[in-house]
């Protein structure tokens, strides 16, 4: 089975090369005006073959991925990767997910998604000019080739091992969680979506076709990628929150930043592509953002794997491949930027516009998002550069909060105003009048918080007030509309912006009002955290499928509510590790978060308790943002379909 997978991978690689060459030839020869009819026919034949090649390439990469999943599912211990990352006594779900819980498998998953996406472009995209599409597919093939080369040369997932050991070494227990099954694939779908968007940009640059049609073809991919990235980041954040056992949900860890940067770029791109599609403005800028978004997703994929960034995601670290990875990164990003620099001169200036207009708001959005992106990028890479000069330093939450926090709050304010401003040109006074209710909501919240809380820190106070204003403002575009006839894309925007308000409120509330209780308690000894009284009832041993453990029984009471929480400590034999299994209970007004610690040797146990008011809103907001993205995507695709059937543009 492993050999079948390897063969499929080789064939896919060869087809990718073919796809690149065919595409390049078509573009090169097809550009000439003096082509004879016979020659034109052969070019058409060439061009016609690119699409099927792309489809078959995608299918072959999927076959390779299925083969890898198969050897993991059947615990084939003659395959080196399975030995190193799996074990026969593991639950089936983690055997399957273990196929991409390691370096080689995750790279194969990446190229599989890329291949399938390429096939989908080849099959579905019918509106873009043929030459631009072929250039797009050629660019896709070029990206895929790098991955195939990397897999086949430097990290073959199907390598055999001889003699075969009796059993494998197992998967890092931290990864044995449903999160693993979904977190990497969703992020990868997002990264791949951005690479497709980039391929469209390359296609448009090569054929000089940067305009609304290109923007409309690219937009669904950006929207889809952005939606998946949002889901991936939100889920990853919640995963870290319950798995690491200290109540933190974002650490400004380099690997987290590596997934945040593509999201920031995609968010900016999403908004600028709208300007390009509706008003034919921001042409060069949109292409530039597509290049940046792709570069960021390459950094997200590769820097994590290179071992340069040491972080909690260290399971991915393998320094021996660093050189290959850095070379690939340099080729991809350098190539993308070089192509942009060479061809940007051919992109004519798009429409310009007034400062007070929807376009103006979207430019502000792009400006602020790009600055935040720059700050995160610099903050993430700065320690690396400093280390190159022999200076060891760490950059973390204090820097990012100080530098990016205020800009993010300005962005939130801009976000409230933007959708209430008209396209082309608007009047400042009229916009202010439309903002009456949101401003009132903000002022009311601020006054209420100051009256109630008194000693609240300034940043959470600002954030909560802005969130209230944004929540009102984000619903405002629906006022006076017939709700049933409101386009889905508008609904998408409303829901996504509302999601940002909800998430921001969750962040501010939990950072301002979280209560922590770290204490050693004996059985029957009550302790208080937030509105709860928590008592340790007892400790009992528990047994899982591939671990043994201790389970604490905590009784928590608030008013008449009585609930039992069961945090655990789990001991895994392969590899030997102890993990904390948190026990979390959600209420409408927050979460009770409990962790069982060590015994103190005198009959007491360490427990860690948190009451986190409204913390759930963080991820609820993330989910709303993703739902907004999905609604927009459905709305856009459906509308384009209808327009295509009518034979015109909407």
């Amino acid at each position, binding site marked *: 089975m492993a050999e079948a997978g390897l063969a499929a991978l080789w064939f896919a690689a060869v087809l990718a090369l073919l796809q690149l060459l065919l595409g390049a030839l078509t573009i090169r020869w097809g550009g000439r005006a003096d082509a004879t009819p016979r020659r034109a026919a052969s070019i058409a034949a060439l061009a016609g073959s690119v699409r099927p090649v792309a489809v078959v390439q995608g299918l072959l990469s999927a076959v390779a991925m299925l083969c890898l999943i198969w050897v993991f599912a059947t615990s084939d211990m003659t395959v080196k990767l399975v030995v190193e990352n799996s074990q026969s006594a593991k639950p089936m779900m983690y055997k399957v997910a273990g196929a991409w819980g390691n370096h080689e498998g995750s790279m194969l998953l990446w190229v599989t998604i890329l291949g399938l996406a390429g096939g989908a472009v080849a099959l579905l995209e019918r509106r873009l000019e043929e030459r631009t599409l072929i250039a797009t597919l050629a660019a896709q093939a070029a990206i895929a080739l790098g991955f195939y080369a990397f897999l086949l040369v430097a990290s073959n997932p199907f390598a055999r091992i001889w003699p075969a050991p009796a059993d494998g070494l197992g998967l890092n227990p931290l990864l044995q969680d449903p999160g693993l099954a979904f977190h990497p694939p969703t992020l990868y779908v997002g990264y791949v979506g951005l690479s497709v968007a980039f391929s469209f940009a390359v296609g448009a640059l090569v054929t000089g076709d940067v305009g609304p049609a290109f923007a409309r073809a690219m937009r669904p991919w950006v929207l889809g990628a952005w939606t998946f990235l949002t889901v991936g980041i939100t889920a990853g954040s919640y995963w870290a929150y319950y798995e*690491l*056992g*200290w*109540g*933190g949900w974002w*650490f400004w*860890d*380099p*690997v987290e930043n590596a997934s945040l940067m593509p999201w920031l770029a995609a968010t900016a791109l999403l908004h600028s592509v709208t300007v390009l599609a509706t008003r034919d*403005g*921001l042409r060069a*800028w949109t292409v530039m953002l597509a290049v940046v978004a792709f570069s960021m997703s390459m950094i997200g994929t590769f820097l994590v794997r290179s071992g340069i960034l*040491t*972080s*909690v*995601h*260290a399971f991915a670290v393998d320094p021996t491949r660093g050189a290959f990875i850095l070379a690939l990164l340099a080729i991809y990003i350098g190539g993308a930027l070089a192509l942009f620099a060479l061809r940007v001169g051919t992109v004519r200036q*798009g429409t*310009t*516009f*007034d*400062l007070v207009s929807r376009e*103006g708001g979207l*430019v*502000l959005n*792009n*400006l602020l998002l*790009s*600055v935040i992106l*720059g*700050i995160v990028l*610099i*903050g993430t890479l*700065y320690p690396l550069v*400093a280390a190159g*000069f022999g*200076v*060891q*330093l*760490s*950059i*973390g*939450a*204090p*820097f990012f909060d100080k*530098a*990016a926090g205020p*800009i993010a709050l300005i962005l939130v304010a801009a976000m409230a105003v933007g959708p209430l401003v008209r396209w082309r040109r608007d009047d400042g006074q009229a916009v202010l009048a439309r903002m009456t209710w949101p401003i009132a909501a903000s002022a009311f919240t601020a006054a209420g918080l100051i009256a109630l809380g008194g000693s609240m820190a300034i940043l959470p106070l600002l954030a909560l007030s802005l969130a209230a204003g944004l929540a009102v403002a984000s619903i405002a575009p629906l006022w006076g509309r017939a709700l049933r006839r409101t386009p889905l894309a508008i609904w998408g925007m409303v829901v996504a912006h509302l999601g940002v308000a909800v998430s921001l409120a969750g962040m501010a509330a939990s950072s301002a009002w979280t209560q*922590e*209780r*770290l*204490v*050693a308690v004996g059985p029957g000894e009550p302790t208080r955290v937030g509105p709860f009284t928590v008592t340790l009832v007892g400790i009992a041993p528990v047994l899982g499928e591939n671990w043994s453990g201790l389970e604490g029984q905590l009784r928590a009471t608030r008013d008449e509510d009585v609930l039992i929480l069961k945090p655990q400590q789990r001991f895994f034999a392969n590899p030997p590790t102890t993990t*904390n299994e948190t026990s979390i209970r959600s209420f409408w007004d927050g979460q009770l978060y409990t962790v069982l*610690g*060590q015994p*103190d*040797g005198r009959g007491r146990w*360490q427990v*860690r308790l948190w009451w986190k008011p409204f913390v759930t809103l963080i991820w609820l907001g993330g989910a709303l943002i993703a739902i907004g993205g999905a609604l927009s995507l459905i709305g856009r695709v459906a509308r384009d379909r209808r327009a295509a059937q009518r034979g015109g543009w909407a």
Partner: protein
Amino acid sequence: MRRAILAALALLAASGVSPLAADTPLPAQPLAYTQLADPAQEARAKALMETLRCLVCQGQSIADSDASMAGDMRALVRQRIAAGESPAAIRRWLISRYGDYVSYDPPLSGATWPLYLAPILLLLAGIWIARASFRKRRR
């Protein structure tokens, strides 16, 4: 001599430490996993711990780590805060001992001024680029 050894053993027994137990790792210091009694002091300690790097972990502060070294550093921070030392002084002490690497909040210095200048430069550059897409005001 024999009497001295016996006396030492008796002392050990009296203090509750058996020679056998000396081989097992020491239990974590109490303040590694318990808070200070004074909420204001604890808040100061917590704020400081969140900006100190756990040196044996990867990308975690000592406030969110299970590593024993992080626990020792938490205990140290809490003890010193309880003794009335200022968070800034504790940070300075830790930096003098472990280097700048231990602090997530790098001080403004020759090595870090580009870092702090960058956001401002980015913002200015962004404004300058964005200017091009706006129509010039008609006079």
